[in-house]
């Protein structure tokens, strides 16, 4: 398992993994601080969104607490030409690619379906149906290969794809199909599996007989396991294999071993299927605490952490106010993008719903 930052906050690349050292050398103190800021931002956002759901402002919230290092590290390793196909828990990856966090809240309030433009952000829409994003990502990567945007002399002409999914999705056919197609095609793609150890209430041990990073081997997709709570391992390993993919080395599977501290969603009660001791074990391996220890060793003082906390409170107040200000979306939104052009049946359905809704007005 690749670990660069120990739980005590000590930095070092084991000799067996020296190929990743050059990626660590690229990072400056400013990058470390950026990682910490965004991990803290992701966590504060998560807390606020959970509260908003409990206050009736969101239909659902999908917490990602505990997975900050895996997401922020790998998210920053994705280049500015690359495409990202997330599942539904990738709030941290969204942060690294400038997605407006309100877009995510709007989706979970039912106001829109995400609302960002994947053409512009290269961060594709959340896939709620488990595993569906993997064939999408592989298809995109195959297209990249067919377009010849792989292995060119000028790095600027190349791009790769990264697909995020969880341990639960590996038991879906889509992931195996994606691995197979990408191996045959030698597509420029990195499969980034966040193994947070619980597929809702199913333990990962009930989903696989071999470590997940070995899942691709039989298809011809090599893999590696990283410490998913180590933001630097997440960054370095992802950066290397995205580089390789762009250079034409084909697909690669990264398993980031991490832990879902919170519930699967706000509709889930994890105390019903797992022990508090297990959660405590992982709480003690908190990715933010680890990075904070490292930063303090580097001489970063309280004022930085206070500033980060203050920024978090400001962000939380802003999204709280913005959420309360969200109105009801126009009915037309449900129909407008079903077809690219006007469609008589959709028009008829829209008219029906409008009439139906209006029948409640002024009801005695």
């Amino acid at each position: 398992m690749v670990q660069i930052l120990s739980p005590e906050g000590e930095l070092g690349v084991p000799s067996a993994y020296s190929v990743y050292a050059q990626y660590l050398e690229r990072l400056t103190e400013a990058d470390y601080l950026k990682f910490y800021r965004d991990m803290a931002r992701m966590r504060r956002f998560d807390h606020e969104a959970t509260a908003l759901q409990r206050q009736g402002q969101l239909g659902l919230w999908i917490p990602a607490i505990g997975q900050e290092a895996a997401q922020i590290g790998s998210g920053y390793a994705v280049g500015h030409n690359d495409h990202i196909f997330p599942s539904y828990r990738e709030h941290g990856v969204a942060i690294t690619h400038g997605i407006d966090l309100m877009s995510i809240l709007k989706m979970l309030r039912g106001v829109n379906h995400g609302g960002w433009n994947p053409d512009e952000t290269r961060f594709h829409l959340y896939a709620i149906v488990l595993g569906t994003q993997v064939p999408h990502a592989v298809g995109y990567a195959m297209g990249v290969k067919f377009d010849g945007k792989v292995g060119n002399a000028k790095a600027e002409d190349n791009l790769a794809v990264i697909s995020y999914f969880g341990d639960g999705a590996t038991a879906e056919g889509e992931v195996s199909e994606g691995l197979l197609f990408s191996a045959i095609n030698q597509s420029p793609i990195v499969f980034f599996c966040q193994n947070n150890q619980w597929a809702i209430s199913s333990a990962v041990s009930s989903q696989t007989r071999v470590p997940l990073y070995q899942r691709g081997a039989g298809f011809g997709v090599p893999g590696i396991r990283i410490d998913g709570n180590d933001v630097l391992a997440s960054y370095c390993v992802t950066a290397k294999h995205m580089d390789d993919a762009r250079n034409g080395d084909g697909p690669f599977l990264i398993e980031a071993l991490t832990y879902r501290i919170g519930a699967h969603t706000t509709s889930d009660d994890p105390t019903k299927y797992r022990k508090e001791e297990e959660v405590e074990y992982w709480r003690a391996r908190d990715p933010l605490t680890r990075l904070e220890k490292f930063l303090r060793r580097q001489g970063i003082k309280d004022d930085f952490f206070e500033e980060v906390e203050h920024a978090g409170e400001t962000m939380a107040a802003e999204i709280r106010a913005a959420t309360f200000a969200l109105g009801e979306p126009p009915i037309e939104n449900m129909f407008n993008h079903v077809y690219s052009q006007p469609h008589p049946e959709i028009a008829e359905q829209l008219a029906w719903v409008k009439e139906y809704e209006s029948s409640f007005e002024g009801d005695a």
Partner: protein
Amino acid sequence: MTQIAYFNLPDVGEGLTEAEIVSWKVKPGDTVSVNQVIVEIETAKSLVELPCPFAGVVSELLAAEGDTVEVDKPIISVSVADGAVGTQTSAIAVAAADAHESVNAAAASVDADEPKTPNLVGYGVAAHTAASRRRGRVAMPQAAPATTALPVAAAIATGALQVTPAEDSVLAKPPIRKLAKDLGVDLARVSGTGTAGEVTREDVVAAASQASVFRNLSTPAAPSEREERIPVKGVRKAIATAMVSSAFTAPHVSIFVDVDATRTMEYVKRLKNSPDFAGVKVTPLLIMAKAMIWAVRRNPTVNSTWTDEEIIVHNYVNFGVAAATPRGLIVPNIKDADKMSMLELAQALEQLAATAREGKTTPADMKDGTITITNIGVFGVDTGTPILNPGEVGIVALGSIRPKPWVVNNEIVVRQVTTIGATFDHRVVDGDVASRFVQDVASIIEEPALLLD
């Protein structure tokens, strides 16, 4: 000046309707901050801590520990600084009021005077959909003195703030409710045939077409014209011709018998609960039909046809059912009903009624009947003297079945009593046969177990 803000119980788990208050973490007078945990609730899914959506001073706890509260009902009021909270929210209501007017303020927050709020997940559940969308359905505790402590909590506890149950106890999807409203059908009066007992589209349509047939729903204003002339044509003309031909060619004789139908009603109830009859409509008419078919076998002449040359006794039963439809009276029949099991007969009766209501009964359906029942009991009348369906020599009228005093072992007890009336063509059926036939039918209604012989 401050405002009172109300926090309504949110749906914390995608489609929950209620939750139990497990423990309050705050009390009136406490200062609370945004996202401070104020209460622990238990839903059908889990124990959940609710964070306060606003900062201020707790004014009232509107539900006690142990209470089960419906989603969207206020659970706490907090005195907040003016303008501290927006009002365009689903789980939060704000009333500009001082603390002494909290009764009306709370009522306003559950009354539909609040702005129409979006449902976050689906349509929500009927009960609170109706409550939040319909005006004037919440009983307001107006009489409560303005200074009474905790009046709203008391009102909730005593049910004064509950939505009136009439329609809300009925299971039906929103489009079905809409349809019922459009057709003027009171859902509470419709018995649902859906898999979960919910009222289906077919139920509503059936009720709509039957309601106006069975009952005068309203008294219209007196027409201005002195007379109205209705052309005699179509079904009305056909009915008239048939009635005249029947009444003036066949000498009618009618006889009646009162019968204790208690056991039939119990039998109907047991059949309804039996898995074999799941989804099939079971009514006393079914038992009556079975009884008549059985009695026909014992008295075959009532199931015959008169021609001037001969009497044709049918050794099969094409069982006619007089059906009141929006288009008028028609008498479709079930072919070879005597060959049918109880279940098949139940299904055939249901199908016949449905076809008739939809106006899809074909001439073939109405041809070749051998004996008929007219179920006038559904109109709420006790009995009548039915007129024979032309070509047949027997018709039975089933009156209403209702609790009446009945003598059992020289004591008056309450029994489900009905009157069976029957009319025969006296050219074919003599008094003794007619009487035996009616007695046979009555004996089955009194003791349906005899059908097993």
